[in-house]
């Protein structure tokens, strides 16, 4: 387990309010602003730590908002700009309507988007997953689970998040023409207990459901637990996203067919290294599309043991 030093929080507070000249260190700061606290970002943090080891002349930090709201994120970005940070990589919560805030940031520092893109803003580049493509990958897995078709239910926190919409879009594209029917999408407003009850209620109501798909990291473990508790492992197949420990355990014991994982480690590492390159004037690595897509991987019974070991290492190691 990793705990920030006791001094970090007050220090961050102090930095946020002090003009740059008074700040203790003259090292340029690169900030990585995420949307919500999750293991996913803990992995990204390892990538950032690796980048920092390679570039010790930079001060790198990850900032997690207290509330997963666009307003909270905006407050954080404003504070960072007031500190005159050199670069920000951000997973914007509501990119469509945050263009102003992002553009203001882009004027004052190097701005990358990560995890969720804001193509309308003046960001230098997006480094992250193509969620539509990830959705298509999941769709393929769903067809693999039900080669002869069937009924599927999707579970997600909220549908107003871009990544949720894009993943659903990708899934629908992939399923086009197949015999798999998406019965409905259940949302839980990020309440984990409700995520579980949504699965329980689905199993109770639809006796003919064959496939459950969790779109957000915590959805798949809750599906796994509810299915186990209901004893429905043989009846329903599960396809998920992301690499929660329980998800991986489910794959290992055969309850979950597969999960589509992103590579947050690369988000963190490449964002930091990329921002340093831009600061040094090297923009050659940026493609025409201004999007660096980190491909997703499929984890299933064939590679889960090795992946579990890898994850354990990442989450434990500091």
């Amino acid at each position: 387990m990793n705990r920030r030093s006791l001094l970090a929080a007050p220090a961050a507070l102090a930095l946020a309010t002090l003009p740059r000249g008074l700040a203790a260190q003259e090292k340029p700061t690169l900030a990585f602003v995420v949307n919500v606290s999750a293991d996913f970002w803990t992995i990204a943090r390892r990538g950032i730590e690796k980048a920092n080891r390679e570039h010790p002349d930079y001060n790198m930090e990850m900032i997690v908002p207290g509330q997963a709201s666009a307003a909270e994120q905006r407050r954080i970005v404003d504070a960072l700009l007031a500190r005159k940070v050199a670069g920000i990589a951000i997973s914007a919560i509501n990119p469509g309507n945050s263009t102003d805030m992002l553009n203001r940031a882009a004027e004052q520092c190097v701005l990358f988007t990560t995890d969720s893109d804001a193509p309308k803003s003046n960001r230098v580049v997006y480094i992250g997953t193509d969620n539509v493509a990830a959705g298509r990958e999941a769709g393929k897995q769903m067809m693999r689970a039900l080669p002869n078709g069937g009924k599927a239910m999707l579970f997600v926190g909220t549908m107003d998040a871009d990544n949720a919409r894009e993943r659903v879009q990708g899934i629908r594209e992939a399923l086009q023409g197949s015999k798999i029917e998406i019965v409905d999408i259940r949302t839980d407003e990020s309440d984990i207990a409700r995520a579980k009850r949504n699965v329980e209620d689905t199993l109770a109501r639809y006796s003919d459901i064959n496939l459950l798909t969790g779109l957000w990291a915590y959805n798949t473990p809750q599906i796994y637990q509810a299915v186990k508790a209901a004893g429905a492992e043989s009846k329903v197949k599960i396809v998920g996203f992301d690499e929660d420990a329980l998800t991986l355990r489910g794959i290992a014991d055969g309850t979950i067919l597969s999960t589509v994982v992103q590579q947050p480690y690369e988000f963190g590492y490449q964002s930091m290294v990329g921002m340093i390159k831009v600061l040094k004037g090297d923009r050659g690595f940026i493609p025409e599309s201004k999007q660096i897509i980190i491909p997703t991987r499929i984890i299933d019974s064939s590679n889960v043991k090795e992946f579990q070991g890898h994850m354990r290492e990442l989450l434990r190691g500091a």
Partner: protein
Amino acid sequence: MSKKELGLAVLLIVIGGFTAILNPLFLSSVNLLNMANLIGLFGVFSIGQGLIIITGGIDLSVGSMFALLGVILVDLLVNYELPWPLAVLIIIGAGTTLGLLHGLLVTRLRLQPFVVTLCGLLIYRGIARYYTADSTMGFGYAGDIDTITWLASGRSFGIPNPFLFLVVVAAVMGVVLHRTVFGRYLYAVGRNDEAARHSGINADAVITGAYLLGGGLAGLATVLLVFYTSSVSPSSFGNFYELYAIAAAVLGGCSLRGGEGSILGIVLGTVLLQILQNLVNILGIPSSLNFAVMGGVILLGVIADQQLGRRKQKAQLQRSQALAAAE
């Protein structure tokens, strides 16, 4: 059973009946058992909330308390590998201690309960997030926790254990509230602490006692909730749960002015809330309408209760006036 509780029970049956007609699966044993499980989870801490509301106070901090105590529980079991009975005792003790702290701040320093527990809400959430460096804690790689997992989230005789916990808690608290001297004092202090003090009652001790019990029940609820989800995300675990508890207590007949409410009412309020959430899924109402359905029914329930209460009061007033006039 008072008229109030009877009314709530009728409302429950009507709503349940409608849902069952629209989709008979509502009454399937799988669905009923699922609901019983959730009723158990939410009922335990709603009763604690109800006790505090009866003193005229409120506890906004329970949701954050779940996050803080939840991450500590996981940490104790997974990283410190404490035997589970000890870990559970520590969590319930910690909840009780926090409750005691709230009670002392309210009675000794005369701070408003809303303010004290609002600060608790912010502080505990913050500490939980700091403690875990914002990462989700789970039992992913944990060792031997099968017994406690079964106890907190398994079933006995086919009935979910959290529901059985609720039955026990409700029975004990029902006796405490409705049969003991302490319960009587709780109502008296909630209604009129001045008159209670003038009757030689140590009102401060009574109020502190309610917060203490509320904290202890929140500790117990933490254990049940953590094993329901098997993971605790410090920034979202238990968010808004204090409001579910307040809603259940208010639906169940507690007045935020204090001095009113019953354990049966609070349990029925919890049942109604859970049925409402369940029927959204069972009837295929868009998930997004979940909160709106809940809010609408609570509002209707409170309005109906208010009207009934006014009538009853009027009738009683007329009766005693008629009697006074007759003599």
